Structures are given as structure tokens and as C-alpha cells.
């Protein structure tokens, strides 16, 4: 799979602009990259705690107490009886419907659990490049449809495995808690609704690690390389390394040095290889000879002011960092 080769790289100026837009988050680290998502649409069985509405409750009370229910409009009553019977709260809707045990419990508690089947969407990050299985990640805004990369597969058992995960995991990852089971063709042979469908979608944007929080990702419109700042594409709480393991690995210093060389080449700075690159906290420090510094200071557009950004790495994510030049 070619996650990183065709990644459209932003300019350093664009990176700088995004940095300023995200300043309020106080990012500690910043990545730029692309993620492929498996958008799976599958038939699921869900359980909902459903409150009895006042009309249902009134009718159940009337039936339970043998009150005359004829006060209801016959048509409304028939609809209510039908709904209640469908929910399993009544035995039949004939002339003398009776409350089931579930119905009596619902009347006592004011709610009941309704089981339904419907097709739902689930998103999994494709982690083939990391050699791990796809991880559930609930996006918070629509993702762009993508052409499925070569070798695009999804281990379908992962879909059911998520259902079995503990509630804490589901809450942390935003997995819908009401999903009780995935209904596949084995459970419903020949039922078209039970066919799971996998669409390839992609996220192109930046991932920031804000101060005091976990990861937050923002999409970028590739046509204008504009940051869609209004709403994150997704967020990841503690334990995000499980979902995006490649972000947990810091680029080697050599990769930063290569990034510096690339930057200098793009800006026509000679003798860049004479500089030493070091990482100091969140900043890349470049120790450069005087001639290089002078050249940088006299370059057009004041690159050190607006474009002092490097992108390191070759995978689906590139670590982004600001650099400063120190004269030696």
C-alpha cells in the first residue's frame, strides 16, 4: 500500500499558517499526513433504553388497571397497541391485550429496552503500513471518499471483535454502546441487508498533540490546502498509540537533517550540509556557519520568519517542527 508516496506535501508557509491557527491549542507536537479509513456499513442489532411516552404509559396503565381504554381515539389506540405489542410490552393487539412481564416492568420503570436491527456505519483506520490490524476510530466530520489502495482488505472479524470489547474501551473510542451484535450473512443467510460493505475513505490533514490533551486531527482541503478548523476530523484520548502507533515513534535526527537539507535546497541555500541539526524540546536547532546565516537573512520572503518549518519522515505521517538557526 502506498500511503506516503503520493502524499501532497504542504509548503512551509502553509504549515506556519496552520500553526498560527492552532495556536490556541498550544500544540506540543504536530504531524501532517493521510489516513485511510475503512468505512464499513453493516447490519447490527442494537438495544436502546427507550422511555415510554406519556400516551404509551397512559394506555399501559389503563390496561394494567383494567380501566376503560376506549377513551382513546380508536385509531390512536390501535397504533399505540401495535407499537406496544411490537416492542413486546403487550400480548397481541386483539380485543383483550394483556401486559407482558416486560410491559409490567416498563410500566414500573417508565422505560424498556427495544431491540432493533438497522444498518450502521463504522470507521476503522487502516494500519497496514504499521503492520497492525485496523483500529476503530469514529470521525467527527465526513471523510472524503478515496480510491481503495492496492491490497485493500479488512479483517471482518475485527468488526465483531469491537462489540465484545469492554464498555470502558467503547466509551474511550466512541464506539456506539447500543450495538449488541453484528448481523452477518452467517446469522442471516441470503439477507441482503446483512452484507457488510467496505468503502475506502481518507483523512488528509494534520494531527496535533495539544498541551494537556490527547490527539486532535483537523482536515485539510487539498485544493487550497486550507485547514478546516471549525470541527476536528477526529480526536483520540489517552492510549492513542494503539490506534496510530506510527505517531508514537519520534523521527530520527538524521531524518530531521534530511528535512533541513530538503528545505535548504528548496530555498536555494548552499552549504546546508555544513550545518548541524539538533532537537531541543519542540524545536529543531540548526547550527549554521555565518555565510549560511547571512544567506538565510538576505533570502527573499524572510524564510526564517514565515517558513521555518520542516517535515520529517517518509510514512503516512510527517512530523512537523519549527526550526531556528544559530550561528556558529
Amino acid at each position: 500500500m502506498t500511503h506516503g508516496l503520493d502524499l501532497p506535501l504542504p509548503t512551509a508557509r502553509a504549515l506556519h499558517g496552520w500553526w498560527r491557527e492552532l495556536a490556541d491549542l498550544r500544540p506540543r507536537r504536530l504531524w501532517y499526513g493521510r489516513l485511510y479509513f475503512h468505512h464499513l456499513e453493516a447490519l447490527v442489532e442494537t438495544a436502546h433504553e427507550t422511555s415510554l411516552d406519556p400516551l404509551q404509559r397512559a394506555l399501559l396503565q389503563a390496561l394494567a388497571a383494567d380501566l376503560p381504554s376506549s377513551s382513546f381515539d380508536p385509531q390512536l389506540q390501535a397504533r399505540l397497541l401495535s407499537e406496544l405489542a411490537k416492542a413486546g410490552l403487550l400480548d397481541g393487539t386483539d380485543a383483550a391485550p394483556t401486559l407482558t412481564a416486560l410491559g409490567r416492568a416498563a410500566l414500573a420503570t417508565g422505560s424498556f429496552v427495544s431491540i432493533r436491527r438497522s444498518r450502521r456505519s463504522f470507521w476503522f483506520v487502516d494500519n497496514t503500513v504499521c503492520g497492525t490490524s485496523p483500529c476503530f476510530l469514529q470521525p467527527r466530520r465526513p471523510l472524503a471518499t478515496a480510491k481503495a489502495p492496492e491490497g485493500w482488505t479488512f479483517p471482518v472479524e475485527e468488526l465483531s471483535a469491537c462489540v465484545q470489547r469492554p464498555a470502558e474501551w467503547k466509551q474511550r473510542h466512541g464506539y456506539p454502546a447500543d450495538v449488541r451484535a453484528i448481523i452477518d450473512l452467517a446469522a442471516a443467510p441470503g439477507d441482503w441487508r446483512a452484507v457488510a460493505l467496505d468503502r475506502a475513505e481518507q483523512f488528509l490533514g494534520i494531527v496535533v498533540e495539544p498541551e494537556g490533551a490527547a490527539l486532535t486531527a483537523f482536515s485539510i482541503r487539498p485544493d487550497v490546502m486550507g485547514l478546516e478548523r471549525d470541527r476536528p476530523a477526529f480526536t483520540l484520548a489517552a492510549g492513542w498509540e494503539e490506534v496510530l502507533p506510527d505517531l508514537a515513534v519520534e523521527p530520527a535526527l538524521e531524518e530531521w537533517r534530511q528535512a533541513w537539507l530538503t528545505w535548504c535546497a528548496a530555498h536555494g541555500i548552499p552549504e546546508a550540509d555544513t550545518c548541524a541539526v539538533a532537537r531541543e524540546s519542540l524545536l529543531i536547532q540548526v547550527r549554521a556557519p555565518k555565510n549560511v546565516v547571512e544567506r538565510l537573512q538576505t533570502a527573499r520572503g524572510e524564510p526564517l520568519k514565515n517558513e521555518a518549518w520542516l517535515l520529517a519522515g517518509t510514512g503516512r505521517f510527517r512530523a512537523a517542527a519549527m526550526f531556528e538557526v544559530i550561528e556558529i
Partner: protein
Amino acid sequence: MTQRERQTPDGGAQAPSRLAAEFPAANGSGGCWEDLVTEIPAARRQELLALADRQGLLYVHQLGPVSPRHPLFSALLHGQVANLEPLHPPAVMPIDPDLDDAQREAVARALHTPDVCLIQGQPGTGKSRVVAEIIVQAAVRGERVLLVAAGAAALDCVLERIGTHEALFPLRCLAPDERAEALPACVRRLTFAERLRAFEEQTLGAARRSLGEATRDWEARRRDEAVWPRLEGALARIVHLDAELQNLAGGRDGFAGEVLAEAERPAEPNGSAFQAELARIASRNADALARIESRQAEHRTATVTVQAQRHYLETEVQPLLALAEAKRTGQWWTAAWWRAVFGGNVGGRLEELQKQLQELSPLEARLKKEADDLADERSSVDGLARTERDAAVGAETTRRLAAADARAAAAADERGAAESEWQAACRELTDAALIPAGPSAEALRMKRLEWEAGLKQAEQRRAAAAQSAAGLEQALPTLPEQLARYVNLVVATPCGLAQDVRFGEGVAPPATFDLLIFEEADQATEADFLQAARRARRWVFVGEPQPDDLPPPRPTHGRVVRPSALRPGCFQRLWRNLRWDPRRLPYSWEQRDGRLHCRLRAVPREQESWVQSERLADRPDVELHILSRPHQEPELVEVVFPASTSVPEAKEYLYRELGEVTLQAASADWQWAETAERVILRLTPVADPNAVLVPLCAGVRELVAPAAGDENDETAEWRTCAVEFDRSAGWDRTRACGWAAEQLRLRDLCRSTLLTVPHRTCPALAAWLMHLLDGQSVPTGGAPGEMAFEFVAVPTGAAGDEPRRRGEEEHRVRSVGGAAVATRLRHVKGGAGLETDLTDSRRIDQMPADLRAALPPRGVVNYLEAQALIRRLEGMLADDSFRAAAERWQQNQARPCEHQGAVCAAPGQTTGRPAHCPAVAIVALYPTQGELISRMLQRVPALLASPVTVEVGTPSSFRHRECMTALVSLTRSHTHRAVPFGDGPEALALALTRAAERVILFGDPGTLARRSQWQGALDHLDDTAAERERAVLARLVRAVHETEATLPVFRPREGNRA
């Protein structure tokens, strides 16, 4: 999955629906699997299903070029129906048992279509009934239905049928310009405001009443609580007294023994009086006895003494007697003799002793007597004592019995009082069922338990009723949302739907439905369609045939057909794309120039110059017409046979030589039928006995029959009745369908149904309407004397008649009575000119000035025609049999609207609303003519007083309504030119199809004849509409011309005769 299930807010992401995909404004993401799958051909679907089974899932790229796709509605409009799989809907068990086969088929198709279904039929063919059935069946299946119609009348027509069905909870949305008060009562109650009001007044009111009743019941049972102790007290007393009485009754027999026993017992110190008496008696007896015994003792002593004395004497005497005897006898040899001799004075001594003995005897007798006396005295004393004792015992016994009787009487009185107390307490019980069966502990206990259970139940009921009432009170603020949630049928016009606050366009997310039914779809615009279609996954469009459904205008020689100004409506486009119409096949047969022409392809007029003729080498009498356009392949467009060749021969020849099935159908109706012997593609509703068989290929034959065409339609001489496939030759339905698809391009998607059976009208009238409107064959039957269709000529048009404009008196132009209408029309060159254009102030006519002044300033009226109509109406109303029939009709029509008890008002009744179905409808094609007739009706007292409901209106005002008899005023009567009749052919068809039993047309034969001769656009009518109107009127003119004597159901009359 219903739309409601789909819409459930689950918290997680819901799969996108086709609705979103269909209308990208809502959601631009691709479409969900369920929608995509419907676009995939069946075979491919099975492959994908197997693939999904193997892989566990499907990848979108494996679906192939399915998505993104053209929106379905747009695709259907553009004829992209290749992906639609033919439906095979199972038969549906109809709720309405009177549906005919076609209607049942329409219902089944509508219910089972995954996408779209079309239903088309002329007025009166039962479309509304089918719609009602579809709605109810869908609702029973748990689906949510949206019913939309261009006009509110169509909606209300359906609602009046099914508005109260228990499977439905319908909601009638009001358009902004619609008032609820104007709706029929049974429809008005279905509006949201009325639903809310009914809930508050009925449901909530009943809940409050129920609470009141439960409270009263509970309080009454609580009051009973004090009754039970009283009942228990009374019961205790009753039980005690019963026991006492029983004891008293039982003791009565034992009193004697008891007293005797008591008398036997030793007296107690403080004993009873009885015992004291007994003691006294005993004491006295004892005293007497003591005295006697004392005397007896003395007597016994004396007796003993005497007895001792006697004993002594006897002891002394006895030895002396033997001595004395021995002496006296001298028995000296005895000792005794000797002792007597020597013993002394034995004799004296003996004598003395005997004397003493003799002296003792009286004493002894006295003593014995005394002893006997004493014994007697003792017995007497004992007897006296016993008698006294017995008397005392008897007295005691009597006393005791008396005492017991007295006590029993008192106890009985006490018991009576206790029972009265019991009864009084019982009467205080609120529930008669709680009254114990009798004063018994068990009965009381059971009833008390029953009461306690009832009290508990009443408490529970009261609590439940209070909760229920409180719950409903709490529901009030959110009641609109609650009710809307349960609505499973939303009924609205497009405008009303768009602006509805709960289901309208402004609601987010928009309400969606499982099924959209679009009534009067033929009148809807594409915008209306799109607006409604986005709300549902499946669509059913119902409408009437439109002009586009007619055969395309044939090139008329020497005349240019102007292009149509009106585009066909969406419904008609859908119909055309989804329904195979045999009339759209290019073949036509006509006799022209003495030869038989078979047209294989239509040739545009501008290309006619490129048509070349060529004769067959092997059969020179057959001429080929070949279209040889520049730079294009020549194309055979027509084959001309000699006059001697029959159509069957020619057809057989063409199929043999060209492989063309030159089928020409009379109507759009067709259907597959199957018998044991063959599969039949029927193209006419009934088999024609005159049909001729044309063998096509092995086992396949075409049945053609001569058909009467209209006077301007020379081609309609031979029509195909059916194509038959013999099973014996290996044909079955599948193979026959394949043959038809290949040869006739017939692909039956089973998504459309054409309703052709008239249900509103009587058979004779229906036949005439089918002839006039659809061009079907002229009816030939009809019961004698039955006049289902009449034409009243105004004026008569007889030789003596002159146009009205000449100012002659009406009665003077009615000179010829029963002259044949055919004679009148034969020489007509124009109309009588009886119409009056109200804008023409110079026009002189005989309309009374006050009437003229009351009419609108613009419009067309025909005063003489109005007069003829009213005279005819007067005559009808004077007929007893007609009046009786009308009253029967009115009674049937005024039945309560379903179960609501509301009665649709009749005209003239207090509500002032028009009857839904008047007995007599006067349909004027022009509103001004209707106004004129209304005003003239007001001047006829006999009409005003008649109980028969008569309503005057334009055709549109009678839409979705029916009447027993329709009097149609055609109005137009122009002197020389062809004029249109009303708004167009639809209005004319509407006017003709309102009546169930009889239609009486009033018109000017000359103007009709002139109109029937005009071809092409006319005034506001474009070519198509004008042609359709012309065709109808031409058939009418021909019927008037030809059928007076032969067809009793069609009766031309003289309009000017009184």
C-alpha cells in the same frame, strides 16, 4: 425496515439512505447498500452475495459501475429502466372484496414494488378505491404512507373511504388557503387541530371522568367498611337466637323427663319451688306413713304375740290330741293310751287348750283386719302422696313448657330484630353483589373478603386512573409531537405538505415515509413530484390518461401539424417509459388508393421526398417504399399490397419475408393470460368472434379482426386482438415473454396497471363513454327503454329552424318534432349561433335583462340551451320513477361517513354545503353558463321545492364526485367557425364521466359537427389537446348521426320542444 426504523436516532452513524443519495442536497455520500443493491442486475446480485459470503464483506470497488448512479426518478423520467427487474408480486388478499382483478393486481404491484408503480385509468375505473386499498394494506404491514394529490378533492375522496380504518392514524394537512370548516365532517376530524381538540376533549376528558368514577367507586367501597361490623353483630345475634330457639324447640319434649328426673333427685337446700313442693308432699307422706308404720308396728307386736300364743297352744295341743285320740279309742297298746291314762287330765287340758286356741282366732282375725286396714291406709297414703307428686310434676312440667314457649316467642322476636338489622346493613352496601346470600358466617366472610379485594382493586384503579389522567395531562404540552409520531398516513396537497409545520419542508430532519402515493399524478408538475418523491423510498403514481397517451398524430395529407406547445406531464412520461403500449408500435394498416398499405416505420413529413418505390422482382404486385436518406442506409418504411390481398395474408407474408410482427392495437390495454392450451398476449379486453388467425411461426399466431374506425381514421380497419402461443409447440410464459420482448420490445416490468373496467357507471353508459373517450367500438347492446346517454339538440336544426340570432321566437323554430337527427346534421355548415359572448354589449338576445345584469361581464352563455336543460330537468323531476330513483340515490349517498356518525350534507340542507354526490349534476363547460343556469333554476318553484338534490357547476367542481344523472351543457353554438368546448378535453371527459346512470348532453349539433371537422390547434388548445377533443366530439357527432334507431341507450332528442 420501515422509514421510521431507519430514522431512529441511534447515537451512532446511520447508513445513508437512497433518499439522501437521490437528492444530493441532503447528503452527498454515495448511497447505502440497500439502495445500491436495487440497481444491480439480479444475476450480478447473486454473484455479489456469494462473494460477500466468502469474504465476509463486500468492497465497494467490487460492485462495479453501480455507484454513483443517476437518481432513480430522473432515470425513470428519461426512460432508463433497463436496470429494473420485472416484479413478480404475490397475490394480495384484498380487504375490499369487491376489487376486480386489475385492481387487485394494481394493489399487489404497488405494495411490492421496490421503487415505483404506476396506476392509470379513466374516471370511474376505481383508482381511488385502489388507492384506499393500498393505503390500508401498507398500514397493516406497518408502513408509513404519504398520500399526495394535486387537488384536495382527491384526498378527501380517499379519506372518506378509509379515514376511520383502525389500521390507520391519518392526518389531513391543510393547505394555507384551505379552511378546516370547508372539509367534510369525516375529513375535518383528521386534521391536526381537530385531532388535538378531540384528544383534549375526549381522551383527556374520558380519563378525567374515569378518575372520577374510580374515586367514587373507591369511596363507596370505603363507606362499606362500617357496614361489615354491623353485619357481624347482627349475624352473631341471629346465630345465638337460632341456637336458643333450637334449644327451646329441642328441650320441649324433654321437659317431662327432666321434671321427673328432677323430682327423683334429692331435694336441695335451696331448691326450686317444685322441689319444695315435692319435699312438702314427701314430708307429709312420710308423716302419715310414720303414723301408720307405728300402728303397724304395734299391730305386728300384737300379732306376734298372738301368733306366739297360738304356736304355744298348738304346740301344746298337738301331743295332747294324740293321747286324747288314743284314749278315746282305747288303744291301750299304745304308749299314748297309757300316757293319757297316766298323764293326768288330758282331755281337760286339751279342751282348755283348744278353747284358748279358739279364743285366739277372733283376735287373729281382728289383727289381720287391722293389718289389712293399716296396709290399706298405707297404700292410700302412698297413693295420695304419689298423686300429689304427680300433680306437682305435671304442674312443673306445664310451667316449664309455658316458660319455654314464652322464651321462644321472645327469642323469635329478637331474631327478627337482628335480621332486620342485618337487612338494613345489607342495604347500606353499595354493591348489591357484595350482599351475602344469607346471614351465615361463611357467606359473610366470603363477601367481606370479596369486598376487601374489591377495595384493594378500587384503590389500585383509582391510583392507576389518577396516574393515567396525570400522564395524559403531562402529555398535553408535547401532544403534537406525540400524535405526529403515531401518524402513519399523511394526506396533503403538495402545497399543504410543503408548509405543514410537522411534515413540511421546514422540518429537520424531514419526515420520511415508506410509501408515497401520488393521486392525480397526471396533473402534477415535476416540482411537485420531486418534492414528494424525496420523502419516500417507494412511489405509487396514480392518474388519468393524458393526451400524450393518444397515438401520435398521423401526417395528414396537405396539412402541417403544428408542434405541441405542451410537454407531456411527468406522470405520462413515466407511464410511457414503464408501460409498454402496443399503440406505440410503428405499424399501421390502411386501405389507400385502392391498395393495402402496411407502414413499417413513420416517416417525418420532411423526409417523405426521399421515399422511393420499388416493386418486388418475384412478386411485382407488391410495392416497397424505401426511405433513402443521403449518407444513410436505405430503410424499408412501407409495403403496399394489391387490394386483393387480405390483411391476414399480408401479415403472414411480412412476417415470413421480413420477420416483422406488424401488430396494430386498438387500445393501450394488454395483458398476459394463460390457458391449459396456450399462452395469450391479449390486446383487447374481450375476444372478437370475427377474429382471423394469422400464423406467424411454429405455434405462434396473431388474431386480427376488423374494427370500426372513426370517420377520419381510415387506418383503423384491422386490429390485432391477441397473439397466441401454443403450449403443444413448446411455448410457455417465459418463452412467450422472450419472444414478445424480441419481436415487440414488450418488457413487462409489472410496475404499471391500467384500469379499464368502469365501476362508477352502469354498463350501458360505460360502454358509451369508452367509445367516446377511448375510441373503443360502438356499443351495440342496451336494454330496451334504457337511455343511459342522450343528446338533446339545441336547436333542433330541422329544416324550419333558423339560427337564434335572427331574433325569432323560440317556439317558432321548433317546428319539426321527431325528424331524424341524421337528416339535420347532414347538411350542417355551421352552428346556430345561440351562444352569447357577455363581453359583446351590442349583442341582442332574448335573455331577460335582470338575468343579463346578474351575470359576470365576461364569458359565454347559451340561454336557449339553458332553457332546454331546465325544461328537461323539470320533466325528469315530474317523473315519479326518476324521483324515486333519485331519492334512493340520495339515501345511499347520505350514509354516515364510515363510523363517525357524521352525515355528508346534501344540497339545500341546513349546512349549505354541496352534497358530495348529488342526484342530479348540471355540468356547464363554462362558469358563466353555470351561473346562468343556477339563476334560472332559482326562478322555477317546482325545482326549488323538489327533494331531489341538484347541483350546478363546472367540470372541475365535480372532480372526484359523482352523481346519478348528469346534464351537461356544452354551451358553444357558433355560427360558422370551429370552437373549442370548455377548458379542454380533460374538462369534457370530466363532465361526461360524472354520472353513474345517465348523461344528457345539451349542445348545438351544427357547432359540434363543425368542430369535428376541424383538425389542428384551436384557440387555447394545442394540437394534441385539440385532436383529442375533436376525436371525442367526432364520435359524438357520428353517434348522433347514426344511432338513433339502432341503439336504445343513445337517444338524440329535440331540445326545443317543451
